[in-house]
């Protein structure tokens, strides 16, 4: 790792000031991606501003059909929250399968979506749930938030404070993990509401997380796995790497979508 200077912020305003005072600073929450990246010298921020101790970023609240998850909630906290598991089991299931138990104790939802790894799990959930990303400056819809590979709508000094969404009627997530890294080789999150179905795909798209129109259309009339029988997903905008060809990923999108619907239907 290159030299860096560590700062611990105790409030949002302090964090913003610390970052703006730095040469080339970066926020860190759980650090489960950033620290390994720095170790490999693939990132070299002059300063790290630690957000993990800011009280405002913590907690998971459910009131009525609204869910709000603090940005610093760890994957383990999301996975283990009993009220959330009852209200939206799909998101608990998703959190339970991010990384491994040790990573889940540190990694946060805010950190994950700010990084927008094209194979991360949360972006699919947020996009399918039509979630809102709250920052210290504004609210951003998930549709606008995820821009491209490792790119979001966030400004440099902007801090995610929470993620919120309205509970869907049903939701499900199915992931086929990359055998080596255990990130999503392909993951599909489906959410059904009165006004339609949203299905978001992670791990497969050349430009990161995306909504899968053919799946949404097929499920709009019948939210049943059989509605997806024989569906073909175009492979042309999907990724090819040593682990999976675009063609194979296209197959996985269809298969994982079916399994996500099955999970949603319990």
């Amino acid at each position: 790792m290159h030299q860096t200077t560590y700062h611990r912020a105790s409030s949002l305003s302090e964090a913003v000031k610390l970052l703006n005072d730095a040469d080339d600073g970066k926020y860190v929450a759980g650090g489960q991606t950033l620290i390994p990246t720095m170790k490999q010298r693939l990132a070299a921020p002059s300063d790290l501003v630690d957000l993990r101790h800011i009280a405002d970023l913590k907690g998971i609240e459910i009131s009525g059909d609204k869910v709000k998850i603090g940005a610093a909630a760890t994957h383990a906290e999301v996975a283990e929250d009993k009220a959330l598991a009852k209200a939206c089991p799909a998101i608990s299931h998703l959190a339970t399968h991010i990384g491994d138990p040790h990573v889940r104790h540190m990694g946060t939802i805010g950190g994950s979506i700010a990084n927008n790894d094209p194979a991360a799990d949360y972006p699919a959930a947020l996009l399918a749930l039509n979630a809102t990303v709250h920052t210290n400056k504004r609210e951003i819809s998930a549709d606008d938030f995820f821009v491209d590979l490792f790119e979001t709508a966030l400004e440099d000094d902007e801090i995610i404070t929470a993620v919120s969404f309205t509970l869907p009627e049903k939701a499900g997530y199915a992931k086929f993990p990359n055998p080596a890294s255990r990130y999503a080789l392909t993951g599909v999150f489906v959410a059904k509401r009165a006004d339609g179905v949203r299905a978001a795909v992670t791990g497969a798209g050349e430009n990161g997380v995306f909504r899968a129109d053919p799946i949404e259309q097929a499920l709009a009339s019948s939210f049943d796995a059989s509605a997806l029988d024989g569906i073909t997903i175009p492979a042309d905008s999907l990724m090819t790497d040593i682990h999976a060809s675009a063609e194979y990923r296209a197959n996985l999108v269809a298969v994982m979508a079916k399994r996500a619907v099955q999970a949603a239907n319990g």
Partner: protein
Amino acid sequence: MGIEGIGARVVRKEDKRFITGLGRYVDDMVVPGMKHAIFVRSPYAHAAIKKIDTEAAMAMPGVIGVLTGAQLKDDGIGNLICGWMINSKDGTPMKMGAWSALATDRVRYVGEAVAVVVAETRGQARDAAEAVEIAYEEMPAVTDAVKALEKGAPQLHPEAENNLIYDWEIGEASAVDQALDGAAHVTRMKLVNNRLVPNAMEPRAALGHYDKAEDHFTLWTTSQNPHVARLVMSAFYNVAPENKLRVIAPDVGGGFGSKIYVYPEEIICLWASKRTGVPVKWVADRTESFLTDAHGRDHVTEVSLGFDRDNRIVGLKVDTIANFGGYMSLFSSAVPTYLYATLLSGQYVIPKIHCNVRAVYTNTTPVDAYRGAGRPEATYVLERVVETAARELGVSPAELRRKNFIREFPYQTPVIMNYDAGDYEASLDAAMREANYAGFPTRRDEAKKRGKLRGIGMSCYIEACGIAPSQAVGSLGAGVGLWESAEVRVNAAGTIEVLTGSHSHGQGHETTFAQVVASRFGVPLEQVSIVHGDTDKVQMGMGTYGSRSGAVGASAIVKALDKVEAKAKKIAAHLLEADESDIVIENGEAKVAGTDRTLPWFQVALAAYTAHNLPEGMEPGLKEGAFYDPTNFTFPAGCYIAEVEVDPETGHTEIVQFVAADDFGNIINPLIVEGQVHGGLAQGIGQALLEGCHYDPTSGQLVTASYMDYTMPRAGDLPSFQVSTTNTPCPGNPLGVKGCGEAGAIGSPPAIINAITDAIGNNDLSMPATPQKVWAAMKASQ
């Protein structure tokens, strides 16, 4: 056997320190004044070095020295070598290219060491390493061995025309061709044995310390064979004379072959310590391990197996191209020849065998022995072609094997090996029983109802352990002898220290070797200590690899015990005023047979050292050494049966049952033997399902250079294993043991692939059988 002796399921003595965090690995060592080394490595697979400028790096904070290959040459440090001479079939010796521990004019694989920075801290050394300026002129690279042999391929070494190191054969080609021409059926396959990275969990490390006062070097290193390291560094690399070099391999966190060899970093840490005047420590990070630990396997093979009308094998023809990487590693040449082709007879009577092997340079990491070394490659070839033949012939794979089994011993194969003992039907029957082979169709039908494709696959392997005897391997080109040494020291109060040239890096020698001693005298295990891994303590030894510690290392201990026992009996007879032939030593005492006259063990020992009352002319002391040179290899064999379920939608394979029935001869500690089998199976299953190197064919970059891309077997990828043993004792060594360290890795890959190909109905499937590949194979056969 007793509760602690040979055959007892004793929990390990060495565990205490490991489970409490008190193990002592090389990276745990601290020497006063110690500084840290970071290597500057080639980012290119193939390039000419035009200029190395170290000035900027030297000026960085904390930097003590920046050293290059030119200085290494100035100091007369020799090139790395391969220590086993193989001659091509035209009689010419193998073509070995020069390999300097620090490259001077050209680099031949990504990760090759070019310079080293020594600094106060690891971080400072890494900062400065980035400031070493090296001007490279990139050259075209080739990573595939088949392509490297083609006309116009990039050329690696001037010594090796067309990148060919040797073109070797065994057996008579024309006789095999004739047999195949006359065969009723010939099964032909093209098989790839995927390249693997050993991935011992402890990365390699070295700490070199030059003591100016004594003009003496000490090296702490992650080695499976510290004595061989010392010998090679003295005799060939000119680092220091043997009497001025102490090599210590303390606790070592796994080896699997990768820690047999002497690597550039070990040479450099010693040399740099003298150059800079400070002790120098280097510890690999995982990416360095991926790039620089000797890889394993990487064969491309064409095989033809012929049968007569009665389904008896008439001949086997094998043509293999072996990828050696950019340089010849220490024992690389022996792996695809004497450890591979000599095992191609398997468990079968095969009248004619011919194998041709071409060894090839490519712009990849050097390849050498990895758990099994040649034998997994041989077993994969034979057991896939036999299973496929059974399917083509429409007969049961088990019965086809049974029909062709060798049944009389000793059995001379057409490829050098002389099998001393075995009962292949016994392990086949045991495995089939345990697997409920007969009940498979019912299970397959049940799985089908759940939407899963269930398949069953078998592998009957044989392997050769305890490579020997020295004279024979010498005549085949080995640069060293392959015996082992032991010294048994009975202390004056009766405790016992055993010094062994074997090295434990997970095998549990501190327990099994102590059991051998405890058995002999009936003393408690805690009174026996095993000393290993230090050239200043143990005089000379050959180390641990090729499952040799039991068959060779423990046999040397037995020989030394024989001498100790003989002397102890003389002393006891003298003190008990009995005839020597009437003395027995058991349960911690010497006694006169048939009487109640006894002498506690410690009193025998004490008498040897007080020397107040010894038989006339006897020297004081009770300490004996022995060297043991086996008369033959040992031949563990067994039968593995895998059962899998494939998800037809994703191609994902789940192993639902894995049965192993092994014949290891006599067993010293079943608990430890089972553990060895489990570990071997995991590595073999890893090869079959998960692991494989991917080099970018154009740039020569290793794409699978971290756990993000190279799939290590995890707990969730594996089932619990059903392991059992059968026993035909090895007639060739005093303990009747054969060796168990590699069997799992040797026998399991074909069993897994045979099971998957059975499930999906397509024999054309290569390792690793990733979900994507299985899915594609299913699609192709639709």
